[in-house]
């Protein structure tokens, strides 16, 4: 059956695959025929993702990409890639008056520096095939709007979208495409934050025209579009997936 979204025989690296959007993306990519290479910090949870993958050619690596040596070691071990999904990310809620250098560095390191250096090192070591697709996870926060207490997270996600465009332009000569997803609140561990009560999350949900948050697979399907040949003329683009939240 004709399926322009197939990932058959494509090898896709997915970071942050032990939970949330990364986990769902890994599982859905494997269902579409991809050979998935998953990376995460928590072995037990990463193994749980790995056990849910379809196919025989998947690989899993427990690694902390924030550690440069571990990152370089990982790049040596992975096969040549047709796609990268940068879904590792953190969120810290803190009012602006309480931010400091250390907190900025923590958030920027994981949300911005690690995905960028990982991409750069993979390119440098020629592990990215012609026609490969790179997908960054930005956010509606920092690109379209923002939330109280979310200044650093927003800034990091804004930076991710900016560099998506620059990379798309610079890598076009290699026929490598670079795109970003801009999700709103998604049902993942990241939103179960001690700074919000269940009641506040429910109030936030009511602000969404579709009256709910995204399911992780609803983000994964858009990532799959960017990874597949269905989007072969799409680069430097971003897609808002927010149940209509930013319409109001």
């Amino acid at each position, binding site marked *: 059956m004709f399926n322009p979204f197939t990932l058959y025989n494509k090898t896709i690296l997915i970071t942050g695959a032990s939970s949330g959007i990364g986990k769902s993306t890994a599982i859905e990519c494997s269902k579409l025929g991809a050979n998935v290479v998953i990376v995460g910090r928590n072995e037990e949870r990463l193994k749980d993702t790995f056990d849910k993958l379809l196919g025989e050619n998947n690989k899993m690596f427990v690694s902390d990409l924030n550690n440069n040596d571990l990152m370089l070691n990982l790049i040596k071990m992975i096969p040549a890639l047709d796609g990268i999904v940068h879904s590792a990310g953190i969120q810290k809620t*803190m009012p602006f*008056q*309480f931010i400091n250098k250390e907190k900025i560095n923590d958030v920027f390191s994981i949300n911005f520096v690690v995905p960028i250096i990982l991409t750069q090192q993979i390119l440098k070591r020629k592990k990215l095939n012609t026609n490969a697709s790179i997908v960054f996870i930005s956010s509606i926060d920092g690109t379209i709007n923002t939330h*109280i207490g979310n200044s650093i997270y927003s800034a990091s996600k804004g930076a991710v979208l900016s560099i998506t465009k620059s990379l798309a332009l610079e890598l076009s000569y290699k026929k490598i495409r670079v795109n970003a997803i801009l999700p709103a609140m998604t049902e993942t561990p990241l939103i179960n934050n*001690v*700074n*919000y*009560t269940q009641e506040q999350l429910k109030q936030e949900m009511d602000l969404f025209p579709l009256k709910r948050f995204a399911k992780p697979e609803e983000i994964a399907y858009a990532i799959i579009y960017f990874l597949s040949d269905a989007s072969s003329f799409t680069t430097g683009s971003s897609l808002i997936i927010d149940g209509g939240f930013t319409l109001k």
Partner: protein
Amino acid sequence: MTIENFISDFSEQFESTDKSEFTKDTYFKDLTEWSSLVALLELAMIEENYGVQVSAEEMRNSKTIQDLYTIIQSKQ
């Protein structure tokens, strides 16, 4: 750490409410200036000044400043 210091730290997150409004028995969510932003400021202040993380849920279940102080003490 004393309750007096905590009351003072707590009151500093407010802009216009008079200091005299704050005692250990103040029902802080009844103060007109109370908002979700002030709640976030208090949580961040507690983490920075007292080194413990109080959740929004724990704050929701607290009525007085003393209630919050008791939670912080239990975590230290």
